[in-house]
């Protein structure tokens, strides 16, 4: 089977945008076509990662709209909804479309328009993914994070500050990302004294509500060489699903979907945790960075906080820089775009195009989490040099 290459990437400005979902998707799609040097007429498949344009905006049919707006008719198109991991699921779908031989040029565009809704409304749209026995109690994704964080801190005797240090690190990284929603450092005291959202977690333990879009162009490696000498290949990708009912999980500190998808991606790529040079993890909440570090084998169970305390995940001095983009925490989290944007950051790192965020990297990993670990996609990418 021929390897699948990524030959172009783009990302819109993340944050509060005036544009609606159609315009955001088109902005990223056009930029990706230009970055890849691909004519819209040559796009055979076009996937759109989007969780809830109908619920947020009342706009359905975004796939048809985007194909038309990009003048990519008659490309086959399909929407990919896997809640917050729609972007990662889109990567898996795009990889499948090329690896199967069904398409020689597949464009993936992920996006979400959210900020026109109040925080309460946006929270409820996202919370509607939960099982009714949890939803009717007013559970939210942030409250799952609070429940899990308390359990983690108590069980592993981890200091509360270790979670705040994740926020401080990712905000520091976001300063060098001009497309991040927040380009502002915070200190530990600010994070620790910010308002409580879901005890013991506070405001700076959570990502913001965001508008934005991101895109990637996929093709067989043989086709990639017709366009460029420098590209990135998908070395491994896998997805997995955990329980819908979060409280049914045997161990609240283990996300089975992270473990399973990580093992699948490692097996497919031939790489292991020690081979990863840079990673983008789904830090929708700071506690998730710990759980993914442990689920992916970067840290022993219950010990990720120690690595964060030691600076292991720092961008410029750490052995494994995590969330060089600023992560969802600082860059923002437009649901359907986030998994795609994670891969855009790794693409830029592997291509040497990350500017002041650049780290030395040949192999990178993204982990995109839907719900509270309900669905997970792990992708391993490597530079083709």
């Amino acid at each position: 089977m021929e390897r699948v290459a990524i030959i172009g990437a783009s990302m819109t400005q993340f944050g509060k945008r005036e544009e609606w979902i159609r315009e955001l998707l088109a902005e990223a799609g056009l930029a990706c076509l230009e970055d890849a040097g691909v004519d819209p007429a040559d796009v055979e498949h076009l996937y759109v990662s989007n969780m809830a344009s109908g619920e947020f905006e009342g706009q359905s049919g975004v796939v048809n709209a985007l194909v038309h707006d990009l003048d990519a008719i008659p490309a086959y198109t399909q929407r990919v909804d896997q809640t917050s991991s729609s972007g990662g699921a889109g990567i898996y779908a795009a990889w499948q479309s090329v690896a199967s031989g069904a398409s020689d040029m597949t464009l993936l565009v992920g996006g979400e328009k959210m900020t026109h809704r109040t925080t309460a409304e946006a929270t409820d749209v996202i919370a509607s993914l939960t099982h009714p026995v949890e939803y009717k109690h007013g559970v939210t994704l942030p409250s799952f994070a609070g429940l899990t964080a308390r359990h983690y801190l108590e069980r592993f005797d981890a200091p509360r500050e270790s979670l705040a240090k994740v926020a401080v690190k990712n905000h520091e990284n976001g300063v060098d990302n001009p497309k991040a929603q927040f380009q502002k450092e915070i200190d530990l005291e600010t994070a620790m004294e910010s308002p409580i959202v879901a005890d013991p977690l506070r405001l700076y333990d959570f990502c913001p509500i965001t508008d934005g879009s991101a895109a990637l162009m996929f093709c067989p490696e043989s086709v990639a060489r017709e366009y460029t000498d420098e590209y990135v290949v998908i070395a491994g990708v896998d997805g997995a699903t955990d329980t819908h009912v979060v409280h049914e999980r045997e161990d609240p500190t283990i996300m089975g979907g992270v473990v399973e998808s990580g093992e699948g991606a490692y097996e497919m790529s031939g790489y292991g945790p020690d081979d990863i040079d840079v990673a983008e993890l789904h830090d929708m909440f700071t506690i998730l960075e710990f759980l993914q570090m442990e689920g992916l084998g970067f840290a022993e169970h219950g010990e990720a906080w120690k690595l964060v305390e030691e600076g292991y995940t720092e961008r410029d001095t750490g052995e494994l820089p995590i969330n060089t983009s600023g992560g969802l925490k600082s860059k923002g989290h437009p649901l359907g775009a986030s998994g795609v944007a994670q891969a855009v950051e790794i693409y830029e790192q592997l291509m040497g195009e990350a500017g002041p965020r650049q780290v030395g990297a040949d192999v990178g990993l993204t982990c995109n989490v839907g719900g509270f670990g309900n669905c997970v996609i792990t992708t391993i990418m490597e530079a083709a040099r």
Partner: protein
Amino acid sequence: MTMEAYRYEDGSITYPGHPIGPDGSEPVETIDLSEYTAKVVTWTTSTATPPGVREPNTLAIVEFDVSEASDDASSSRTQSGDDGEPVRALGQVTTDDVETGDTVRPVHVEELREPGAGIREPESQEWDGYRFEPV
């Protein structure tokens, strides 16, 4: 009104019940968890709640330790000790004065959140249920 869990052929119990259990078998009986007490595994107080939800909203994941089914209706329905089957549930707590390890009992309430205020179709689910009260 009950807090209905399913027991499966292998003895495992889930709340809520599912058509197929963790062991791949169909459920063999239902268990009313509202007759049992439970221990708090973890808890949080959420201050950013969706429309129609009380604010703040203290939630807990609790673990029931359910003994084998008994034909004797008067048999103990409290925690059964080491031979019980664990089953967890998430729910609102009646107070914000709660700690990990506390013992709680389910207390029925007619409305956990305002049905018409959220995004879900009001008729798509039951809106009454049980809160956990420390004992």
